[in-house]
């Protein structure tokens, strides 16, 4: 009987595996690729080592005054000393625990979202989180001391502005998108006028209007909080963009879906909320997250109306005569914080896209 002798497994040819192969395949495959690789390597070589030298090897971390920053590198002592200001603005020190509690609750909420399957519970949890967070930050109830908005600042203000903008612009945007897609002429024209008007104006103009022009029309005594005015402006601005993104999603839904929903006797709101919107939102997620990320970055514009968000806090911290000339360290730090937040948001959007992807692969 013939016996089949298993031949020894041969290794793959040396030129199709390993680091060398990967390099050849990805970095040095064609002359133009070789040139680009070398150029890239040169750029990294000329930027990274000096940056590391400045930011780490020559940097100062210890101490608590400018005099202790003796090296040629970065003075991270500055960021360390001013950390509370970057994070909480001028929030009273003995009340900062309220902000920290808000962050802890936020992570609990994320954990809950991760494990819970029930959408109803998620909505209840989210709404109650918003209420608790607003209570914690502003105070004035349950024995919490009121913290005036002129004490708010730094990262905390950036997050408040972005979060309020995102959370409140979303439902308004949905309603505007429905309105624009509606067949009722008055509603439709109101929504179109609103959206096109807002989109024709830069955010900076709206902020200026809210901070400079608006108060002139109120009688004295009725002074609206400056932050509240800015928040309303940003929310109304963002809503117009959200509306257009969702309208894009609505238009991608085939006519048959509307007709099918009509055919089984759903009312307008049932049709829109149960059939059309879920599908439209799924399509709109990447653009929505993109818009929210750019809103997060746009919040830095509030510095032109004298609100001290994270970015303007660098100017404030470096204007302290004990720490003059530390802008660079501050801006590098703020860059990193912004990157971390925006990257986190974009990862989360990737996860959502995958989760909602019901198409056959």
């Amino acid at each position: 009987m013939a016996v089949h002798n298993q031949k020894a497994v041969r290794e793959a040819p040396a030129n199709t595996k390993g680091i060398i192969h990967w390099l050849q395949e990805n970095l040095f495959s064609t002359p133009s690729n070789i040139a680009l690789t070398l150029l890239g390597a040169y750029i990294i070589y000329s930027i990274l080592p000096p940056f590391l030298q400045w930011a780490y090897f020559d940097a100062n971390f210890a101490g608590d005054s400018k005099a202790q920053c003796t090296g040629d590198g970065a003075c991270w002592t500055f960021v360390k000393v001013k950390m509370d200001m970057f994070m909480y603005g001028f929030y009273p020190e003995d009340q900062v625990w309220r902000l920290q509690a808000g962050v802890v609750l936020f992570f609990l909420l994320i954990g809950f979202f991760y494990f819970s399957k029930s959408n109803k519970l998620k909505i209840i949890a989210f709404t109650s989180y918003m209420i608790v967070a607003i209570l914690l930050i502003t105070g004035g109830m349950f024995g919490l001391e009121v913290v005036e908005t002129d004490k708010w600042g730094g990262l905390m203000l950036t997050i408040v502005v972005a979060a309020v903008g995102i959370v409140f612009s979303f439902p308004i945007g949905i309603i505007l998108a429905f309105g624009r897609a509606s067949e009722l002429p008055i509603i439709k024209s109101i929504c179109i006028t609103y959206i096109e008007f807002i989109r024709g104006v830069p955010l900076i103009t709206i902020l200026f209007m809210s901070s400079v022009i608006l108060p002139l029309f109120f009688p004295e005594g009725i002074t609206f909080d400056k932050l509240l005015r800015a928040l309303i402006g940003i929310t109304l601005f963002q809503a117009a963009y959200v509306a257009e993104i969702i309208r894009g999603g609505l238009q991608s839904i085939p006519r048959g879906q509307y007709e099918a929903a009509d055919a089984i006797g759903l009312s307008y709101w049932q049709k829109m909320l149960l059939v059309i919107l879920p599908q439209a939102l799924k399509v709109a997620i990447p653009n929505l997250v993109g818009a929210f990320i750019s809103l997060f970055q746009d919040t830095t514009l509030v510095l032109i109306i004298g609100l001290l968000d994270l970015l303007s806090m660098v100017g404030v911290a470096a204007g302290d005569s004990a720490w003059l000339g530390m802008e660079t360290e501050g801006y590098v730090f703020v860059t990193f914080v912004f990157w971390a937040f925006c990257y986190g948001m974009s990862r989360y959007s990737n996860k959502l896209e995958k989760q909602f992807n019901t198409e056959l692969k």
Partner: protein
Amino acid sequence: MTKFTKLSLAALALVGMSATAGTLEDTKKQGFVKCGVHVSNAGFSEVTSGGERKGMDVDGCRAVAAAVLGDASKVKYTPLNAKERFAALSSGEIDVLYRGTTWTETRDTSLGLNFAGVNYYDGQGFLVKNSDGIKNAAELDGATFCIQAGTTTELNVADYFRANKMAYKVNTYDSNDQVIKSYESGRCDVITSDASQLYGIRSTLKDPSGHTVLPEIISKEPLGPVVRQGDDAWFNIIKWSYNAMVEAEELGVTSQNVNKMKTSDSPAIKRLLGTEGNMGANLGLSADFAYNIIKQVGNYGEIFERNIGMNTPLKMKRGLNDLWTRGGLQYSPPFR
């Protein structure tokens, strides 16, 4: 006239009316002074690591609070940008603007503002390296200047050098940061900007003592507190709460010796501190309003030295801001 313009005019008229209703009474009722300041300007309105505001302008606000409410800490600071500062004042969001605002004819007349004094005489100056051996501006012939683009600084330099028939070169940069960097790397010999800024810039250089701000000032920038037109009582309070600090320095009254000075025999000191005459009552304030200012905030020399003087990182000389008795411009009309 459209409905909208009518409406806005009515609203503005309302603002104007309520302004005349008495900022002093409103301030006493709400218990704090609404003061507009610079967001961040070293030595004038800066925030310490502890989150407290301090500076020359901030002390101006505190002096008003001490005068009106007897407590210098009763101030609500509103950080403002250059563009929104006047609107904040005319809308009543703030009642006094202490924000390094240059007193010009246009602002004083056409914007509905009143300038209540000059708490810092600024002007464009020159910062040079000691190693270049330049002692005054006449020796700057042929020098290269670093300037921030889009400021009147550039025009002032052009005027000055044309008038003096000297040659010069200019490198303009977008930001103050770039100006400093290129000065440090030797691409220019001179930085020119407002003198108060130059002292700040000097303190950020590697070796501050190796650089000097030249004595020449080539433009006038009188910076001072501003109020709305139409409330003369309030205007007087801002004016005289500032004058009280200057007068106190001239009379040698400081926050340290003010209690002892209360029993002084000098009639001028007695009038200032309210033990004689009715200076306070004329302003609608308590008799000891100036005492409160000096006790809690200090006299002009004290706030200068504390915030921007030689013992601070900014190391500014008194210069134009010295008392008139020592050759400066700080001069208070008499308290009598």
